[in-house]
């Protein structure tokens, strides 16, 4: 079983649209949406939820106002500035429990925190593991790790050949959590200076965690000079540019219809590029 994660650094380059199409093209796979705080893949795959589970993670401090003597020790020692007027701001609290331990009158307790939910669903294209982090919650990295673990268990049970996961933007905690230990990363970029800058950083993260990467330039014809710069850069770095997808409004049209673009219009130049991209990826994953 081989796991592919789709990343980009910069948001909005087309990760989810491409994953939706790979979902339609790949056979014998389990899908995972690792973007747990702004998940969109379900909008293309129309999942029917089979299983919904709570994600309890971390703790939040609570001050018992009756016991509290307002001595001032906890706001002084809290490194996260989470205690104001002797009340805990649950958004700032990181659940370390320092305040509970130092409170001289034992007025502070730690309460388990329901941080979100995760789901196992059926889609037309196979099973999907996805999640929803609660509003303004922490621990997105842990929830991503949970989604991947569930996807892996399911893939093993079914003897699936692939796991395809849609990753979050950025390079921080949830990205690291979706990348580490995967077999390959597909980096979707766009020919803008911001896209190039962010690609360089996310490629650095792949190197850091020893995950081989392939690059796909989306909307390559928006700025062909920049597309050539990306190709030159990738050549220098020894990274293959596996697809050049043209800008086409049918990608948005397909999204509005709630369909992967290869399903909506399989003969379009966009769809043809994505099909070749998947053949390339599948071949590489089988070989490595």
């Amino acid at each position, binding site marked *: 079983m081989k796991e592919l994660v789709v990343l980009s650094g910069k948001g909005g380059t087309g990760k989810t649209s491409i994953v939706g199409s790979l979902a339609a093209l790949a056979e014998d796979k389990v899908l995972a949406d690792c973007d747990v705080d*702004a998940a969109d893949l379900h*909008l293309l795959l129309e999942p029917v939820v089979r299983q919904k589970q709570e994600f309890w993670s971390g*703790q939040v401090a609570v001050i018992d106002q009756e016991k509290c003597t307002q001595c001032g020790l906890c706001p002084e020692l809290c490194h996260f500035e989470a205690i104001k007027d002797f009340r805990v701001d649950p958004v700032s609290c990181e659940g370390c429990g320092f305040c509970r331990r130092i409170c001289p009158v034992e007025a502070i307790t730690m309460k388990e925190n329901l941080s979100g939910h995760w789901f196992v669903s059926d889609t037309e294209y196979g099973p999907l593991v996805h999640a929803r982090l609660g509003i303004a919650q922490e621990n997105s990295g842990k929830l991503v790790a949970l989604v991947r673990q569930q996807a892996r268990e399911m893939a093993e049970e079914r003897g699936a050949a692939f796991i395809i996961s849609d990753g979050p933007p950025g390079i921080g905690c949830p990205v690291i959590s979706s990348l580490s230990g995967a077999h390959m990363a597909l980096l979707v970029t766009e020919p803008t200076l911001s896209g190039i800058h962010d690609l360089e950083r996310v490629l650095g993260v792949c190197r850091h965690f020893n995950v081989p990467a392939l690059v796909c330039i989306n909307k390559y014809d928006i700025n062909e000079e920049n597309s050539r710069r990306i190709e030159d850069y990738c050549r220098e770095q020894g990274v293959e540019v596996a697809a050049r997808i043209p800008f086409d409004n049918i990608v948005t049209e397909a999204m509005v219809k709630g369909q992967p673009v290869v399903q909506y219009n399989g003969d379009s130049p966009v769809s043809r590029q994505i099909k070749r991209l998947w053949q390339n990826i599948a071949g590489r994953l089988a070989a490595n």
Partner: protein
Amino acid sequence: MIISVASGKGGTGKTLVATSLAFSLKSRQPVQLLDCDVEEPNDHIFLKPVISQKEAVCIPVPKVDEAKCTHCGLCAEICAYNALAVLPDRVMVFPELCHGCGACSYLCPEKAISEEGREIGVVEWGDADGIDFVQGRINVGEAMAPPAIRQVRERANADGLVIIDVPPGTSCPVVEAIKGSHFCLLVTEPTPFGLNDLVLAVETVRELGIPLAVVLNRAGGEYNKVEEYCREENIPILLTIPLETRIARLYSRGVTLAEGMPETQELFILLWDEIRKILDEGTGSLKR
């Protein structure tokens, strides 16, 4: 006055709006721009600041003095993040798991633990042709964005206008970047993904009790559900930017809209006037 520019979904145009707003207002009043997307900061590409100073972002991690340590195990017991493991003859520290709460060093009965800074990124500032510019950047491979965001926020000049470019998503980095703002602009696009993530972003910003309004970018298609949602939720759309190849090309070259098409500066000045009007009237969309 602090205005944050956020979105939920990545790639909707936060950077475009934040940099163009700063660019349009700089000749009328002092403007500071804080790029809080410390995973993938892009504002510098558009504003080309001359960086004059920088400081490291460090988080305190425990350093154990083995000469004093009795291996009692208390530190490992109290650490909520499993960043310490006590063996019979030594203590192992896992700095990448440490959140820097300070509990272990304060509570160690032998005073054998001190806090040592571990560098995870940098905050830089300087002048961008009349804009007071600050950005943060975490090192590739680092997971924790919030400490870098906090440090960027500390440089906010409370007297003037501060514009914050917020990272995508709805979890802890977003909250860290937005909280304490007087107003939040949510940039979205008229697509199902744009709408889905806008709804999540609105929930997040309302949770923080900050008045908000929407900027609709790449407008002009048939999909009108974003407008419908905003009407139902009583959220004003303060600016609409059309889907135009010319704008996309400018962006791809790292030129912000207000600079590349100076006639649009008036629109950003109007946007700022509208925000001020909403704040003066106290009618910002606080409805829950």
